[in-house]
């Protein structure tokens, strides 16, 4: 296990370095600069700004400076804000996105599994159709539409919940639901097909033949085996959710870090682009590792050290 962890850590660092380098090259190769605007920008002012943020240095020097500060866990300043650094953005935004994402993840995956299981158990009957219609809606209706519908009816017309902003648990309900729709639908479909496959396996038939209670067969023998594909995709779903959704955070005015990515690129705020990419990759790598460990726990046939 220790050897596995160390090896994975090495690969993780290598992957991160490649992500940094690629992002650095890509972001400097797109047109535009952080100070572009429709208004006046006298060359003298522009040069002052470029010098202030070390953007007048050759690219390899900037690259070196960035790697150096990254080793000290310093993501640098945000060019669009002279009050917040990229570290501030992550420190203040990530807990918010994490909170929202976890809530959406729990709602989405739990409901998705429940719907998927029922759809499979009642294959080609009404509960199946109902679940799958819900799943299709969840997959095909974009979450910004759901969000606007929620705001308009639940918040404004019926006055049940606050329309936007962040603060109390009431503020979290609508964005969590809007964010949960997609993973719910996705999980439900995946769970259904996986369940159907497992239900036709010999060992399930054997268990039934042995007279084990139906609920036990489903819980111990079917769901446990059928859930593996869900665990596989969980890493990606979770990373997407906990690092924040630009659209949902934008619509609900939530101070998370979802907008960092999109606005960073839009503003050509180079440190923000790099910082959010590095952070996102690190979270993804970490979660993938956690999932791999989870595998061995759910399915003892898989050994993390197996390949050696």
């Amino acid at each position: 296990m220790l050897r596995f962890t160390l090896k994975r850590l090495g690969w993780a660092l290598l992957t991160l370095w490649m992500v940094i380098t690629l992002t650095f090259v890509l972001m400097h190769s797109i047109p535009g600069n952080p100070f572009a605007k429709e208004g006046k920008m006298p060359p003298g002012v522009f040069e002052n700004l470029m010098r202030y943020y070390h953007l007048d240095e050759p690219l390899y020097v900037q690259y070196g400076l960035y790697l150096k500060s990254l080793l000290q866990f310093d993501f640098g300043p945000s060019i669009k804000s002279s009050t917040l650094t990229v570290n501030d953005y992550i420190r203040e935004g990530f807990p918010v996105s994490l909170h929202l994402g976890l809530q959406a993840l729990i709602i989405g995956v739990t409901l998705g599994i429940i719907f998927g299981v029922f759809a499979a158990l009642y294959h080609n009957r009404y509960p199946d159709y109902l679940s799958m219609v819900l799943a299709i809606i969840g997959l095909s209706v974009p979450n910004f539409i759901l969000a606007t519908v929620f705001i308009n009816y639940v918040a404004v017309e019926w006055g049940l919940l606050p329309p936007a902003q962040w603060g109390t648990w009431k503020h979290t309900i609508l964005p969590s639901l809007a964010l949960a729709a997609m993973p719910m639908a996705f999980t439900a479909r995946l769970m259904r097909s996986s369940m159907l496959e497992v239900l036709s396996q010999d060992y399930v038939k054997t268990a039934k033949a042995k007279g084990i209670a139906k609920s036990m067969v489903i819980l111990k023998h079917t769901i446990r085996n059928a859930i593996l594909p869900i665990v596989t995709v969980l890493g990606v779903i979770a990373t997407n959710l906990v690092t924040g959704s630009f659209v949902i955070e934008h619509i609900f005015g939530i101070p998370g870090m979802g907008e960092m990515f999109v606005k960073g690129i839009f503003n050509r705020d180079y440190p923000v682009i790099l910082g959010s990419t590095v952070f996102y990759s690190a979270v993804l790598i970490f979660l993938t590792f956690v999932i791999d460990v989870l595998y061995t726990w759910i399915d003892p046939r898989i050994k993390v050290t197996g390949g050696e």
Partner: protein
Amino acid sequence: MKKSISVLLSLSLAGLLALTGCSGDTGSNTAQNNNGGQTATNGGSTDSSSSGPKILRVNNSSEPGSLHPAKAQGTHESWPLRHLFVGLTEVVEGNKIEPAMAEKWDISPDGKTYTFHLRDGIKWSNGDPVTAADFEFAWKYALNPNTASDYAYQLYYIEGAEAYNTSKEKDPAKLKALEDKVGVKALDDKTLQVKLTNPTAYFLELAGFYTYFPVNKKVQEQNPNWANDASTFVSNGPFKLTEWKHKEGLKMVKNENYFDKDKIKIDEIDWAMIEDENTAWQMYRSGDLDLAYPLPTDVIGQLKSSNSPELHIDPEYATYFYRFNTTKKPFNNVKVRKALAMAIDRQAIVDNVTQAGQKPAYGLVALGSVDENGNEFHQTDYFKEDVAQAKQLLAEGLKEEGLTSMPKFKILYNTLDAHKKIAEAIQSMWRDNLGIECELENAEFQVKIDREHKLDYDISRAGWIGDFMDPMTFMDMFTSLSTQNDTGWKNKEYDALVEKAKQSNDQKVRMQAMRDAEKLFMDEMPVMPIYFYTKPYAVKPYVKGVYALATEYPTLKYADIQK
């Protein structure tokens, strides 16, 4: 089958219950962490009794990049800043310039030296006296090249300012020498002398602009980061900052040290930071905001057609126009440019597409500035829409360029639905009226700007909101040396007229030079004006006294809440 459905329903209900319980738990943690901030917002609708504090709730749309006057970059900064600080002068309703920190001023006969006399007893929010040295310090701080201020160029009217700001001097002593040459000097605590390079007729208006706000020298020298946090924030305006929750909101309460505090009726302004216009509008509907600006286009249309008393449409000193790339065939030909400009129906665009009472534009300078006699500067339409003449001009122009038909071309716009709709309308008008085809091309804002600078486009959309209420803010965009020109059009005569207007201290000479320049410009038509903007915003009926200047977001300082 019925049984199975009920099992499913009951199970999913049980699941939902478990989940709501769960989110309740996590929620209570946040409630503890964020205690204070949001409760007021929720309570806003309940404390409608007139006895409570008067809190005005507005949306700043975005986190301000900085609330230091020297580091502000745009409206997200300037809107709150204008309520935290006040300059030597202040522009109030009707574009009148009133004394603010300065009680009175003297202007030398050549119009180049301004001597401001500060009021007695003016104080910062921390109790320190506001002195002339604070102004001198603030302006020089903004001009220091190491501060890297975006808006430093707003101070270039001052003698020696541009030389100091653009200096690449690394030697501190030499840089200091340049700083000392900047023409702003505190003669004593109460007197500020400003020397300008040219007589600048609108300097008194500029003296109220946010780059000209003072900074408390003592505070800045003790803590350079004072502006980053509400607890160390010191200002001299009608309100003082009490809370700044990043990307969530700002709170400012009435500043008891403000010299004119009797005119301030509200106790507090709460600023949300909702980026989405539609969400902000929904918050206005649900009563979580008292003022909504900017508004989504379809909402403006709805409010306008229902004659809602909550909709205010104030003028905006701004022009929406299309740039021609005059270095590219056939747009190098003035007849072709004119033909295109004459073949669209601007009234139809403002009535059906933009829908906010905009005015068709037949000139560059927007409505709202006044001439030497105090009348509207924009007196003449420089061209008329005329399809027959446009067809003829197009045919002549193409022939002069040796072309038999109009080559295919593209309208470039930055990705935004409103720009797309306007471009589509113009595309179909050109097709119907001139029988020519063009394509629409959207690009990300940054890419559009980059391509304009490189003259890599045919026709490109643009808009310009004046920095100050003088035609010069439009005129100096298109001089040969301007970095904002981006049309490839250069004209020595035009440059000379603009320079003449800049040098002159005589309003009559200035205005005539700018009229001549605008006429020349429109005869050459390097850009095609489309409409003059308006500023539509919604205010709740119980909020009184909000007005908007033509170059600024709505002014809230004189507002009152009467529920």
